[in-house]
């Protein structure tokens, strides 16, 4: 980037980010001109337009040669696929937010501005090999999310949720930064790729403890974002307290971005210590064995906690929060294998998770619009009256459980195979067991929809029709059913993982 021409060339690589930045400035200006209060729909179209443009630019970049631009922004298939993941998820969240009839009309401009800012943070989080830029992306995503959680000033539940989120979140990211600073001190570099060499040396020389401490601290930060076991306490309270679209955003976009960043960090910075990595010239070290065991135990605890706590929930969003903790445990299982197959399975599962979790939160929104309640009781008798949404819900529930014709089954299958072959058969068996447990609480939702008498439900007299939301649910459900058609997407994830491993 010595001269202006190469600067412009480099700029081409981050054009999606530039488009998104222009978009969020445009939304802010539109809000300042009074649009936020008077014409909320226009702002949504503005945001969606810029997100669409960003997605087009990203799709155009899918086939590009990998590159590192401006010294720290990494543009490769993994980054591009996950930027698409984030951008489309944020687009759907904006659509959800428009369809949410139970929120005050105020603050729409801010909501969209913050969602786009969060997406930008996610873009940098998934697309960098530099620890400082990773932290910057994580914080941009996090800070916007804290503000999003507390966007409705007079809402007590939202205020409490935003408080819990900001305290735990800031603590976790601070601990992560401290860990990153220790890694920097050990290796003398902030670049994950150069760090790898030093980490191998350190472990080789018997200084495993020196590597372990920063690794643990960094895991705290990611554990918070992904709601992994000892760091998951915030998730149920926050998901319940914030509005449903924002909960969907936290569960899907924020988690997906964090997963991609975690996989990149482990696959690159720890590449010399992977068990099934590309250049495992060293014999397996105690450090590697311990790391695998740690991640596997975290994964097991996360699964157990999420699925068991979900059993006795009455609030749908709280139930989905616990279920999303459980799914984070499944995804971590793939990472715990510390090998290519595991990473690929974890990323593939995150696509599955995207479809069914957005669908499930959309379902909560749809029926809460109708009944005014976010409890399971609010669903009673809704099935026959809203056949399309109810059928879509059944598909999502089946997929979340992991029943055969749906995406959830294939995603879980890949994960279990990866864990089995990666030497963690007990974890694969635990996953199967937890799927059976999850059947109980997912089935309660289906039963409430179809098998419960109607008189208990209290449909709002003038419940609004939300055809767009119904349409989105139908599309997501269809996507969940024909997931195998998305082979190209899975292939892209594989290519992404390979590119990262051989970087």
């Amino acid at each position, binding site marked *: *980037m*010595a*001269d*202006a021409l190469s*600067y412009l060339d480099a700029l081409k690589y981050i054009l999606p980010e530039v488009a998104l930045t222009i978009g969020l*400035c445009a939304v*802010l*200006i539109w*809000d*300042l001109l009074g649009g*936020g*209060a008077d014409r909320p729909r226009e702002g949504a179209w503005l945001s969606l337009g810029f997100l669409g443009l960003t997605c087009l630019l990203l799709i155009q970049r899918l086939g590009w040669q990998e590159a590192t631009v401006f010294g720290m922004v990494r543009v490769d298939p993994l980054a591009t696929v996950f930027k698409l993941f984030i951008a489309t998820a944020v687009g759907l969240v904006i659509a959800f937010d428009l369809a949410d009839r139970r929120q005050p009309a*105020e*603050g729409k401009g*801010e909501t969209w501005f*913050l969602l786009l*800012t969060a997406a930008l*943070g996610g873009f940098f989080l998934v697309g960098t090999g530099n620890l400082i830029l990773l932290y*910057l992306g994580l*914080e*941009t995503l996090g*800070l*916007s999310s804290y*503000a999003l959680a507390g*966007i*409705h*000033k007079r809402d007590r539940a939202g205020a409490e949720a935003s408080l819990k989120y900001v305290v735990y979140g800031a603590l976790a990211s601070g601990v992560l930064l401290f860990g990153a600073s220790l890694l920097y001190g050990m290796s003398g570099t902030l670049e994950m790729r150069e760090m790898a060499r030093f980490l191998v040396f350190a472990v080789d020389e018997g200084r495993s403890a020196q590597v372990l401490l920063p690794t643990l601290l960094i895991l705290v930060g990611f554990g918070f974002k992904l709601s992994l076991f000892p760091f998951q306490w915030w998730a149920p309270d926050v998901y319940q307290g914030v509005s449903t679209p924002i909960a969907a955003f936290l569960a899907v976009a924020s988690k997906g971005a964090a997963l991609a960043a975690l996989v990149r960090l482990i696959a690159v910075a720890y590449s010399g210590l992977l068990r099934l990595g590309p250049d495992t010239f060293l014999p397996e070290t105690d450090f590697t064995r311990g790391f695998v065991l740690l991640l596997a135990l975290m994964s097991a605890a996360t699964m157990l906690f999420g699925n068991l706590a979900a059993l006795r929930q009455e609030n749908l969003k709280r139930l989905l929060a616990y279920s999303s903790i459980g799914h984070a445990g499944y995804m971590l299982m793939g990472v715990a294998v510390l090998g290519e197959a595991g990473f690929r399975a974890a990323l593939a599962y995150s696509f599955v998770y995207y479809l069914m979790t957005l669908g499930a939160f959309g379902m909560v929104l749809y029926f809460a619009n109708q009944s005014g309640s976010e409890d399971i009781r609010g669903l009673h008798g809704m099935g026959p009256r809203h056949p399309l949404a109810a059928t879509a819900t059944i598909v999502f529930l089946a997929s979340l459980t992991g029943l055969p014709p749906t995406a959830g089954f294939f995603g879980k299958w890949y994960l279990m195979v990866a864990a089995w072959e990666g030497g963690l058969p007990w974890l694969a068996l635990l996953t199967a067991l937890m799927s059976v447990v999850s059947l109980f609480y997912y089935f309660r939702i289906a039963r409430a929809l179809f098998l419960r008498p109607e008189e208990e439900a209290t449909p709002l007299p003038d419940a609004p029709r939300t055809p767009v939301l119904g349409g989105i649910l139908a599309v997501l459900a269809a996507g969940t059913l024909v997931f195998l058609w998305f082979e190209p997407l899975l292939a892209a994830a594989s290519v992404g993982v390979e590119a990262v491993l051989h970087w």
Partner: protein
Amino acid sequence: MYFDYANVLVFLLAGMAFVVINLVLGALIRPTRRDRAGLEPYECGEDVIGSAWFRFDIRYYTVAMVYLVFAVEVAFLFPWARVLKEALRAEDIGGVALLEGLLFIAILLLGLAYVWVKGDLSWVRSFRRGTPRGHDKEV
């Protein structure tokens, strides 16, 4: 060789002149009031004499928050300003660096405009819009 420190002397003199000129100008321009509020040493809206252990008006926090963010953002501008002159002379990325700095300031100004329009800068807030208080975020 003492001449090498001439710029320090100029800096000192300019600094003193700045203070004196401002004091004199202020004395000439400001209205003089002899009432109780006008005789306070600092016109900051709080009692300046007495215990410090009282609750500050909550509006200070809002102003402090806004100030905090903008003041700290300037930390980015110092290194930029430091190397800009040489970069411009070297003609390689100077133009781009200048543009990027201006862009950064423009985005900051957008944040300022946001706080202003939403009424967080006025001491007596107007609740005309009824919008929630926004916290500006420029990253």
